[in-house]
């Protein structure tokens, strides 16, 4: 804060005003544990989610570290075969259901949607708290599984492996995933109703920030896809526990039915992970470019298009399962079609940056990481959507690398970008931005070092889920494991300087980035009821440049 060095009453006034803002903020509204654990304030619930999700990210990351350590050598030296199976299963299950799916919607979506549409809270505040508790119950079950030895089915629970042969706590794991589904269904329901009924006066559908549009699309998937997973898991649990089998081949049942039902949820789940990330990028790019988004409606409707088409592509996970070749051809075509709305978004972000007065802040660097990694993941996804190429690389590290580019390179990077962008709003404090920029670069380099070699490994034929491999694959595996270590450093850096900023960071002010959007018109951190008076919206979401006193001086 340069203001502090200037002697005089102005500095003292600013300081005093800051104190008042902080005293009225949602963070100071009660300090007891009860005021947090029984809160119905969407902002506090978002922070509860953030803490829980970070914990699961660590659990999943430890499992990933075990995998990468074991793969340093072609021999099975660190883990037994069974232990390795359990490590990658826990890694997948925890990362997918306990980190990636709730990551952006339950934390930032929860925090920002009411602020962005000018509402006091989500439509059903108590339901929101309930969904956090449901998440915690499911999380406790999954921790119990981890401590109790885990499962060896992989995150996909394919039958009849999971229903008849697998060792370990399959039913408990399935129960955890089942319960967590209710949490996401309720969150999705809450978002849909909130966006429909609680928009501030003047906040028309055409003035919604794109972050809100993408959360609207993802909520539809939450509500319509998750119950299908719930049913699939009920059928699986009934088969394993009571022998009431529907998939059982011994009875003439078809295990492929499980795969159809599972992927009917789990492919849309990929869009659950990436759509909120795309919403984040739309906000980050426009704020850094200080320009209106290029093609607002195209970006908004592309989210819905991805959500809708995403329901009809599940069969591309089953090209080698023996399903009808005609079905495969249709699924292949529809999978390629998803590239169209995805590409619209990427082109429109690029066009928004074109000839803009760009400020290279940490959030923008994370957004650039996202765009690059998402394009790489998306293009390899197109390769995988081609029938012939998929047969060649099916179940190899090529697939592993592809979906990590989308989920880790895409979603996790966007999650960090969002955290850097809205951290001043959430906490009222600014972090060390130079360190933020360095972290963005370290993550980009570490990520590519980890996962690019896996494309090569997969193309040369290294199958996924094996920890013993021919020695000629060792060099690439060593590079990949080294990259994972660098990536871990990149992920740890923000943990350090963001936490440090809580105590020592300079006060952020209401609008540190000079961004549009209602959330930047209220104080940082916002008061309990978000706005001191009901906001009235008079223009679109990205009306730059800002003619606002809080607008950045160099704008």
């Amino acid at each position, binding site marked *: 804060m340069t203001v502090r060095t200037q002697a005089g009453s102005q500095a003292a006034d600013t300081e005093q005003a800051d104190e008042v803002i902080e005293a009225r903020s949602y963070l100071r509204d009660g300090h007891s544990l009860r005021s947090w654990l029984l809160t*119905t304030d969407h902002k506090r619930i978002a922070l509860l989610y953030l803490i829980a999700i970070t914990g699961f990210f660590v659990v999943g990351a430890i499992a990933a570290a075990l995998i990468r350590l074991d793969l340093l050598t072609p021999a099975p030296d660190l883990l037994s075969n069974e232990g390795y199976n359990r490590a990658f299963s826990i890694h997948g299950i925890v990362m997918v259901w306990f980190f990636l799916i709730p990551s952006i919607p339950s934390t930032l979506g929860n925090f920002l949607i*009411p602020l962005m549409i000018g*509402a*006091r*809270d*989500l*439509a*059903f*505040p108590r339901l929101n708290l309930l969904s956090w508790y449901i998440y915690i119950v499911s999380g406790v079950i999954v921790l119990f599984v981890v401590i109790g030895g885990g499962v060896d089915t992989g995150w996909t629970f394919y039958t009849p492996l999971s229903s008849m042969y697998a060792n370990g706590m399959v039913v408990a794991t399935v129960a955890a995933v089942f319960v967590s589904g209710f949490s996401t*269904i309720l969150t*999705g*329901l*809450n978002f*849909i*109703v*909130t966006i*429909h*009924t*609680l928009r501030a006066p003047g906040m028309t559908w055409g003035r919604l920030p794109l972050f809100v549009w993408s959360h609207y699309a993802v909520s539809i998937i939450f*509500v*319509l*896809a*998750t*119950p*299908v997973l*719930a*049913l*699939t898991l*009920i*059928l699986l649990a*009934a088969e394993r526990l*009571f*022998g*009431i*089998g*529907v998939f*059982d081949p*011994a*009875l*003439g*049942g*078809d295990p492929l*039915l499980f795969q*159809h*039902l599972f992927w*009917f949820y789990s492919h849309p789940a990929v869009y659950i992970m990436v759509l909120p990330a795309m919403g984040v990028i739309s906000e980050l790019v426009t704020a850094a470019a200080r320009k209106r988004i290029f093609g607002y409606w195209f970006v908004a409707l592309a989210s819905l298009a991805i959500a809708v088409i995403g329901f009809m592509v599940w069969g591309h996970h089953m090209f080698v399962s023996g399903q009808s070749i005609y079905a495969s051809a249709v699924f292949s075509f529809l999978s390629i079609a998803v590239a169209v709305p995805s590409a619209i978004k990427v082109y429109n972000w690029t066009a928004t940056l074109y000839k803009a007065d760009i400020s290279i802040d940490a959030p923008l660097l994370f957004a650039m990481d996202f765009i690059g990694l998402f394009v790489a993941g998306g293009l390899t996804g197109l390769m995988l959507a081609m029938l012939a190429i998929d047969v060649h690389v099916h179940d190899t590290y090529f697939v592993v690398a592809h979906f990590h580019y989308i989920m880790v390179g895409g979603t996790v990077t966007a999650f960090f970008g969002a955290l850097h962008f809205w951290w001043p709003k959430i906490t009222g404090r600014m972090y060390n931005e130079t360190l933020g920029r360095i972290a963005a670069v370290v993550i980009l380099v570490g990520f590519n070092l980890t996962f690019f070699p896996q494309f090569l490994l997969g193309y040369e034929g290294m199958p996924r889920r094996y920890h013993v491999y021919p020695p000629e694959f060792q060099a690439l595996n060593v590079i990949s494991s080294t990259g994972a270590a660098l990536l871990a450093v990149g992920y740890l850096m923000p943990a350090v300087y963001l936490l440090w900023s809580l105590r020592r960071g300079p006060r952020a002010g209401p609008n540190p980035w000079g961004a549009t959007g209602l959330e930047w018109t209220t104080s940082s951190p916002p008061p309990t009821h978000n706005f001191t008076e*009901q906001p009235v919206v008079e223009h679109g979401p990205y009306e730059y440049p800002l003619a606002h006193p809080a607008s950045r001086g160099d704008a």
Partner: protein
Amino acid sequence: MPDATSPELSPLHEPFHTRARQREADRLGMLVFLASEAMLFGGLFAAALMLRLLDPAAYAAASGRLSLWLGTLNTAVLLTSSALAALAVTAARHGRPRAAVAMLAGTMALGALFLAIKGYEWSSEAREGLLPVLAPAHFTSRFEQLFMNLYLLATGLHALHVTGGLVLLATAAFKRRTHEDTEAVLIGNAALYWHLVDVIWIFLYPTLYLARVNA
């Protein structure tokens, strides 16, 4: 604002400024939830479709082991209960809370009757050795077992939803403020849920019981 104070109306809760908007939100929330429930059963119907496509003749033959009469009776019982639920909503909207409670009681009685008939049906099927509960089952074919497994899971999941619906209806009937609410927010939502339970049965009935007709 007059609409925040009148006692016979449902109370206004936090993020909302007007009762009309809150009512809209409550209704929309229930509809979205029902869409989610419909997808849950959608997975079951997909499984039934697949079984039937695998072996249409065996599916029809297995369907013949179910009691068509009990299934039909239950369909009539549930449809009637749904009609009573709709009448309860209308009565509440017209400011006749006692009639509304009577209709809700009728709905619940028929719902309980549905469960009783279903329970009787299950127990007689178990005695015939068609269900793998209580006594070991003995089937005439492997496919019959597959069909009965699906039948048990589908009707069991449906019965759970009937039970949940009964709890919801009871909540609506016992809260005084609820049935005196002329906007019928809670009664309306409970009735909506009950209609969904009914609609799912309307699809389960032909899928499971009437499939034999095609044989």
